[in-house]
Structures are given as C-alpha cells and as structure tokens.
C-alpha cells in the first residue's frame, strides 16, 4: 500500500509536468489553431539556456531569470512572429509539419552547440526523501507537484479573474465576435504564445534535475503532452491538467504493475479510445462544426 501511494505521488508529479506541457499545447491550439509538434523540445530547451548562463559564471537564480526571459522571447515571441504568423492562413497541416522541422532543428542545435551528453542540472529542492506515514516521497516530486500546481492555479486565476485573461478566452472561442466587442484578438494570441514560453520554462526547470538536461528530453515528453491534452479535452485548459495528471499516474502504475515492454501502449490505447468514443476528451465540450 505504501508503495502504491509512492507510485501515485510520483505519478502525480510526473503528471504535473505533463500537464504544464499540455496546457501550453492546448493554449496554442485554442487561440490560433497551432499544433506545435515541437512542444517537447520547447520544454527541453530552456534548461540549456540556464546551463549556458551558469557557464558564464552567473548565479543560479540569475540563470533561471535569463532562461525564462530567453524562453519567453524565443519560444514565445520569435516562434509566433517568424514561423506561425506567415503560415497560419494556409491551414493547420503545413504549420504542423513546420513545427516537426522545428523540433528537429532545436534538438540538433542543442546536440551540436551544447552537448550530446546528458548534463546535470541543479535542483530547487533538496535531493532528499520525505517519510510520511510510512510512505516514502521524494522532495523532488513534492517540489514538482507544488510548483506545477501553483503555475496552473496562477494561470487559471489569470484566465478567469483578470480582464486580459477573459479576453483571451473570448478570442479563443469566437475571434470574430471578440473583435467586434473590441478585444485585441491578435494581441491576446501573442500573449498565449508568451505564456507558453513561460510555462515550458517552468516545466524545464522542474524536469531537468530529475532526468538530467539532454537534447532527447523532448521526445517522450512531447508525446505525453499530446496524449494528455487530447485525453483531457483539447478544448479546455482544465482538460490538459486532468489529462496530464491522469496520464502520469497511469503511466507510473502500469510500468510498475504491468509489462514494461508494453508500457508505452497504455497511453496510446487510452488516446485511441478517447478520440473515438469521446473526442472532446474526458472534460471537453463539443467543438463547433459548421455545415
């Protein structure tokens, strides 16, 4: 039983990271019909910005700040202006392919310009285990869960309680009506990209201490984010959260209790079942279809 709880908590921690990645992915889709196949690499990259800063002998907190700034600027602003804007009016698919190329570009760039080896990354939390009611939980997991959930709640607050956040939601649901109502739609889309740039930096900061900073980190994480987003509900941020946590727990439990060889099959099977029988996800609302 104690093991089970440890697994669930670890699963929730991983799930929280999936959720962070999935939220950004969903946000981009919702606001601008962008499917970002490079989302995993977006999470992999900021850690390297931070490591590079530390190589210039900057203290950790400064490196983190620089990482966040660069991530928001490059993976948020530059991504939108240089890649998304020119391509969006031509349809979803060409842009999706372009993000596939982008993921290769980012991966290979890190491999070539930084290192092909895994680099250790300092952690925010002490590398100690917590013993609570006979259950062993690592501080890392707790930190990941807490920070991720804090980020998520902050985002939810922003989206629901602030004017700008509500404008973003309006722009996502019905850009034409929002424009008529005076919502600066183009700017809210930009904010969505900037938020994603920040969220992936948070995820990067949390994931790199555990898995080490490596250029291949994006691969499994990206796939997990897609699955989490769809399973939870591609139309809602809340869906990404639920999907991420669920996926993390299911993944961890199935690895422990089922065959490890087919561990990757569970998320895939879940994805197929959800898409075919409840395409709007476990939490999603029906997407509007025009006849």
């Amino acid at each position, binding site marked *: 039983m104690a093991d089970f709880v440890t697994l669930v908590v670890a699963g929730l921690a991983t799930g929280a990271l999936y959720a962070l990645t999935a939220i950004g992915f969903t946000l981009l*889709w919702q606001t601008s019909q962008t*499917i970002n*196949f490079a989302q995993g690499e977006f999470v992999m990259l900021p850690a390297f910005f931070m490591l590079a800063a530390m190589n210039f002998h900057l203290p950790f907190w400064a490196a983190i700040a620089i990482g966040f700034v660069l991530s928001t600027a490059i993976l948020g602003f530059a991504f939108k202006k240089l*890649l998304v804007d*020119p*391509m969006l009016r*031509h*349809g*979803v*698919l*060409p*842009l*999706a*392919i*372009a993000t*596939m*190329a*982008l993921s*290769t*570009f980012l991966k*290979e*760039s890190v491999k*070539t310009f930084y290192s092909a080896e895994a680099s250790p990354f300092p952690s925010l939390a002490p590398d100690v285990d917590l013993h609570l009611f006979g259950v062993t939980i690592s501080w890392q997991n707790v930190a990941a869960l807490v920070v991720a959930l804090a980020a998520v709640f902050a985002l939810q607050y922003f989206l629901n309680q602030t004017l700008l956040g509500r404008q973003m939601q309006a722009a996502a649901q019905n850009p034409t009506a929002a424009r008529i109502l005076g919502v600066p739609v183009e700017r809210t889309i930009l904010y969505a990209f900037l938020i994603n740039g920040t969220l992936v930096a948070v995820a990067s900061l949390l994931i790199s201490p555990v898995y080490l900073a490596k250029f291949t980190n994006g691969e499994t994480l990206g*796939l997990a984010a*897609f699955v989490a987003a*769809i399973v939870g509900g*591609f139309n809602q941020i809340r869906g990404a959260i639920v999907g991420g946590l669920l996926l993390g727990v299911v993944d961890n439990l199935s690895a422990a209790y089922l065959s490890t*060889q*087919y561990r*990757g*099959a569970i998320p*895939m*099977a879940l*994805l*197929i079942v959800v*898409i*075919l029988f409840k*395409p709007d996800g476990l939490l999603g609302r029906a997407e509007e279809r025009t*006849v």
Partner: protein
Amino acid sequence: MSAKAQTLIGLLGLAIVAAFLILTPLTLHRYGIYILSEWAVMTIAAIGLNLTLGYAGQVSLAQGAFVGIGAYAAAILTTHGWPLIAALALALVLCFAIGWLLGYPALRVQHHYLAFVTLAFSTLAFLVFRNEFWLTGGTEGIDGVPRPSIFGLSTTPDLRYYYFCLFVLVLAALGALGLVRSPWGRAFLALRENPIRAMSLGVDTRRYILMAFAIGSTLGGLAGVLYAPLVGLVEPPAFALTLSFDLLMMVIVGGSGYFAGPFVGAMVAVLLPEWLRFLETYYLILYALLVMALLIYSPTGLVGIVDRFVVRRRTKAASAARAALSASIERRAS
C-alpha cells in the same frame, strides 16, 4: 502556349528525368546507388500517402507503420526460404486489410484527431515490432534479408536491385496516375474539398475514405517489401514514428495533392541531407531550417511553387486575351 507544345515539353522533361534516373547510377559508387534506391522506395510510400492525404484529404501519421509491416513480412518470409513474391502478396493483402480498418476511425473523426489516432496506431505497431521477439526478432530485428531473383536473374548486385526498385516505382506511379485520372480521382477531390456536397451528389464518402486508407497503406507496404532486401536488415527503429513524420513531410514539402509531389518530396528528404553532408554536424540543422523556410514561402510545397507560376502565366495570358478581344470589339463598333 498551345496544349500540344505543353505536352511536348512535359514529355521532354519526363524523358530527361528518365535518362537521369537510368544512366546516372552507372557512374555512382555503391553508396550513391543505395541512396537512389532508397529514394525510389520512399517515393512509393509517399505516393501512397499522397493519395490518402493529398487527394482524399485524410491525415495519416501511420504510413511508416505500413512500411514496417511490408518490410517485416518480406524479412520473415524470405529468411525462411519463401520467394519475395509471396512476401509481396502477403504484405499487400495485410496492408490493404489493416489500412481499411484504420479508415474506420476516419469516419468518426477528422483532421487533427485523425492525426493523433493514426499516430497512436503507429506507436503501437512499433511496440509490436520491438517486443514480439518470436516473430520480429525483437530489438535486434531480422538480418540477412536476401535479394530476390527476377526471372532467374539475381538482383544481389546493387545496380540491378536499383533498376528493380525503379521498375516497381514506375508501375506504382502508373497505377496511381490511373486512379487519379479516373472518376475515383474526382470523387477523392470532392471528398477532400467538400465532403457534404460530395455526399449530396451521391459520392459514398464512407466507401471512398476506407478505400483511400486501404490503397495508401498498400503502397506503404509495397515500399516496405522493397526496403527489406535493400537494407538487408529490418529493425524496429527504422519504422518508428519518425518515419511516419518523414513521409508526411515528404508529401507536404513536395506538394500535397500534386502528382509529382511525392517524387520531389522524397528527393528532398533522402537526397538533400546527403548533399548537405559536407557540412558534417550542421547538416541536419540546416536541413530543418530549409524545410521551415520552404514551408513559410510555399505551404503548397515545391511543386506548388511551379504550379503557382504556371497559373499566374495562364491568367495573365487569359486577361491579355480578354483585353485584346474587348479592344477589337470596340474598334469594330467605332
């Protein structure tokens, strides 16, 4: 330019390309011949995906899995003494059936949802390739896949196997061309452009969607059957999700829905990295940059650029003709 002149130029261009494809390998070393053979094989798979996606409008991220099914069928049967033709028959039937089944999700969901379902299928197929040791040799795969003998002539020499692949490519291309030019081509286009209107005109969209998947997947399987003897070793990483992504990229970069698209796209995906190899470690980075730049400039791909140019000239000529006509009418009236 008259239609006759256009056809003549088209045929001339085709002849030049054919001459290039037939004669150049005679001057190449082993690796060059291998790359060209790989191009031919990937083009077949890309032609299949172009039918499913480019013509019928159905997104599929599973084409790589079908190449894998074909490759494993070839590897398993030929290493047990069966002739390649038997593997071919099995692979085609298997891929058609599984492709048909994969079409059913497409009846329920479309676009990005369909992309993810096919992506999941691709990943599951990879897991089967990797885990079922008794069938597929597991992570080590199957080695020593022999090259076939065609009418008693062995294709073990690389050059001969290349011509064999080229021959199959031509057959596949002619088959695809025949399909696209037939009423099916019109039905596929209708299905892609406006499925609701298509249905109201009697187009059985359900049947055509399943067909599009089945046929596209079968061509993927055909490519796989050729791939196995080409490389000699069939192992799971070659058929992972990356292959499906690469094939999708070939179709889009070449030009989705254009007949020449897959040929050009496969050329970019297979040959361009080789030409960039002199850049050593940077070649993949540059390749990715070029792909992004191309897509930004022309989301309809490379063939799309040519098409736009041709259309622009045609409309200019048409407007000029109209202007001349109205001018001559005015002159006559005055």
